[in-house]
């Protein structure tokens, strides 16, 4: 609690204690006509006594109300509270009922509500900003042999910065010296620490856990990951959702409408009574009108709807899902079609040796030959062969390397003739080969002058992809589609293994846009199509889809720009999770809208018929607000969304 809130709490305690004491004192010492009463103290002393707690709790309201009148803003909530409570006191004086508790209680509850609201909002703001507390405060730079703390802004590209254990990496760079483990959870939501050593690229915002690292920066602070993310998060809630727009419009109409109805309620029925010749009962109708005024504040809606969205966005970012605005959160919840890019999204985008077939010699040996044969090449296929071999390559064993473009490579390893390449290479060498039923790139091998089998290299499906598709189906996505630049056949196999409904292959980036447009044109008006890609060459598609989801996009600025949702790690399961979080948030928003409106209108009607008194009215105002705020904070909780 801050100072302001503490002061308010003290005021609330003092005046509520006084109010309770007075309440009982009135029963015992009050007017002689009441039972058990001794009649020691008479009016107007009661009035004066009751005014003490009333003024303690309400003085700032009067001040603000007065300022509001000067500024010609009549429908200010302070003004309404002041009018309602003063009206209640005046009525009590006129009726000589001595019942001033109503007015004090209304003021008291109103202030309790305000205090609660400012506390809850402050608390959840702190919660959420601590989740995204990745802003580094300083960077350690060596100057004249001493290490100095400077602002990250002052560090230029290719300076060396030192990061001690427990510190945040302030700027993106490459490790020059040192080993450590990094906590990346603030960035990716991934709780497993990551081991890094010299030569590894590191991104800003990670926390260095164990060792001292010397990092050569590759970007300026403003261009670093951490700045990009903070920029995204901070500007996120300026894109307002339709519900929020609705509420702020509603709030503008609601208060004046209720105030005008209150006026009508105070004047019209008594006039009507006069006309038909009955007693007008002015005090009764004015009391009812004042009850109206107490309900007239749209606080519950105005505060809880943005708070729900804020908590929803915060909860999502806790899980490594950055959503650029509450409008996107809203459309995300209506997702019915999810279109994927294949490589890098559903598959790892890294080529790996999958299996070795028909080998006449030992598998290890065959890979060893293959790796050595391809030792001079930097083609992805060669790299994957070298990775599969996994040991140091001794280039002195290799000679006479010949690269035959479009065919493969021939070389001598340990003075044995080795050929590694495709079917054409085998044909040109006059060797019989066995074709493969497996998908992927096939490297046929010849050792000596004989066919020695083939190695299948393929892009690996991510371990979570299948689960991701299943979960999407579970959250009610109608259709999943995969787009790929690869051969349709290759795509089909991946799609079938994952359970994706449709596949389109052989697509250039422009074709992908056309395909997505096709799908958008064929869907229902209220259905939303999301496109998920790794962001490397998907920017146009990301921008075209209703919702563009960029995965593992750290470092790809174009994707962060174009996408509406950014997944910090590249786990496709997060797509379903994002949808679930958005659904939960939207459900809470609707719950709050309905709950607040129903209670308020019910109390208005009951108030008009004189069934609900001011106590009920203040519940309709403050109680609903408290409940709605508590409900809104639920959106922050992302348990059970995975």
């Amino acid at each position: 609690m801050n100072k302001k809130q503490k002061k308010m709490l003290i005021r609330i305690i003092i005046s509520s204690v006084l109010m309770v004491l007075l309440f009982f004192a009135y029963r015992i010492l009050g007017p002689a006509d009441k039972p058990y009463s001794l009649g020691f103290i008479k009016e107007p002393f009661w009035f004066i006594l009751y005014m003490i707690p009333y003024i303690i709790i309400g003085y700032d309201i009067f001040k603000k109300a007065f300022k509001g009148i000067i500024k010609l803003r009549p429908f200010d909530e302070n003004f309404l509270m002041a009018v309602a409570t003063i009206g209640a006191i005046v009525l009590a004086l006129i009726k000589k009922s001595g019942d001033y508790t109503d007015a004090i209680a209304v003021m008291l509850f109103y202030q309790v509500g305000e205090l609660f609201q400012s506390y809850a909002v402050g608390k959840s703001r702190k919660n959420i900003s601590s989740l995204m507390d990745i802003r580094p405060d300083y960077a350690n730079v060596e100057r004249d042999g001493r290490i100095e703390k400077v602002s990250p802004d002052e560090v230029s590209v290719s300076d060396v910065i030192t990061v001690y254990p427990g510190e945040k990496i302030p700027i993106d760079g490459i490790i020059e010296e040192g080993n450590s483990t990094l906590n990346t959870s603030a960035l990716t939501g991934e709780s497993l620490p990551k081991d890094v050593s010299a030569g590894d690229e590191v991104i800003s915002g990670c926390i260095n856990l164990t060792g001292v690292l010397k990092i050569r920066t590759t970007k300026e602070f403003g261009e670093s990951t951490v700045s990009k993310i903070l920029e995204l998060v901070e500007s996120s809630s300026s894109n307002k959702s339709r519900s929020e727009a609705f509420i702020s419009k509603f709030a503008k109409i609601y208060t004046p409408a209720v105030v005008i109805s209150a006026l009508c309620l105070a004047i019209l029925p008594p006039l009507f009574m006069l006309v038909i010749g009955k007693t007008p009962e002015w005090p009764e109708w004015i009391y009812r009108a004042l009850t109206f005024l107490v309900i007239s504040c749209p606080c519950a809606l105005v505060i809880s709807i943005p708070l729900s969205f804020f908590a929803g966005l915060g909860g999502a970012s806790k899980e490594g899902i950055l959503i650029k605005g509450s409008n996107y959160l809203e459309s995300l919840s209506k997702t019915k079609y999810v279109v994927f890019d294949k490589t890098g999204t559903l598959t790892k985008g890294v080529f790996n040796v999958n299996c070795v077939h028909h080998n006449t010699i030992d598998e290890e040996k065959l890979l060893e030959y293959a790796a050595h044969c391809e030792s001079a090449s930097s083609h992805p296929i060669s790299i994957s062969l070298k990775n599969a071999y996994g040991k140091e390559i001794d280039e002195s064993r290799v000679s006479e390397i010949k690269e035959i473009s479009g065919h493969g490579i021939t070389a001598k390893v340990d003075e044995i003739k080795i050929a590694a390449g495709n079917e054409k290479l085998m044909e040109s060498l006059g060797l019989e080969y066995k074709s493969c039923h497996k998908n992927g790139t096939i490297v046929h091998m010849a050792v000596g002058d004989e066919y020695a089998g083939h190695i299948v290299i393929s892009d690996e499906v991510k371990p979570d992809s299948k689960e991701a598709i299943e979960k999407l189906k579970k959250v009610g996505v109608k259709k999943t589609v995969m787009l790929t630049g690869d051969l349709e056949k290759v795509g089909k196999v991946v799609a079938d293994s994952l359970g994706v409904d449709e596949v389109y292959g052989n697509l250039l980036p422009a074709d992908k846009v056309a395909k997505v447009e096709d799908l958008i044109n064929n869907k229902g008006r209220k259905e939303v199509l999301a496109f998920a890609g790794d962001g490397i060459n998907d920017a146009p598609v990301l921008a075209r889809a209703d919702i563009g989801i960029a995965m593992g996009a750290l470092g790809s600025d174009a994707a962060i720009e174009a996408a509406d949702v950014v997944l910090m790690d590249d786990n496709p399961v997060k797509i379903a999770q994002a949808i679930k979080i958005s659904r939960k948030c939207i459900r809470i928003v609707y719950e709050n809208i309905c709950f607040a409106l129903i209670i308020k209108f019910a109390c208005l009607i009951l108030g008009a018929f004189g069934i609900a008194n001011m106590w009920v009215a203040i519940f309709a105002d403050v109680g609903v607000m408290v409940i709605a705020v508590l409900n809104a904070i639920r959106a922050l909780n992302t348990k059970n969304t995975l």
Partner: protein
Amino acid sequence: MKKSYVIEVDCANCANLMEDAANKTEGIKSAAVNFMTQKMLVEFEEGADEKATMKKVLKNCRKVEDDCNIEF
């Protein structure tokens, strides 16, 4: 030009009023107030002087909510 400013405002409705006031200020193309993050995101019109415009924005906001503050 787009810039974000730290603001201080106590109630959500007041934040909406501030947004309206800021949007009506000369030199402002669009302004969005985020009550939750206590930030105001402002897009200036071309050629508008930042300091002078923000002074006007603050003045207009104070008219609707005298408790508010904008840091610029």
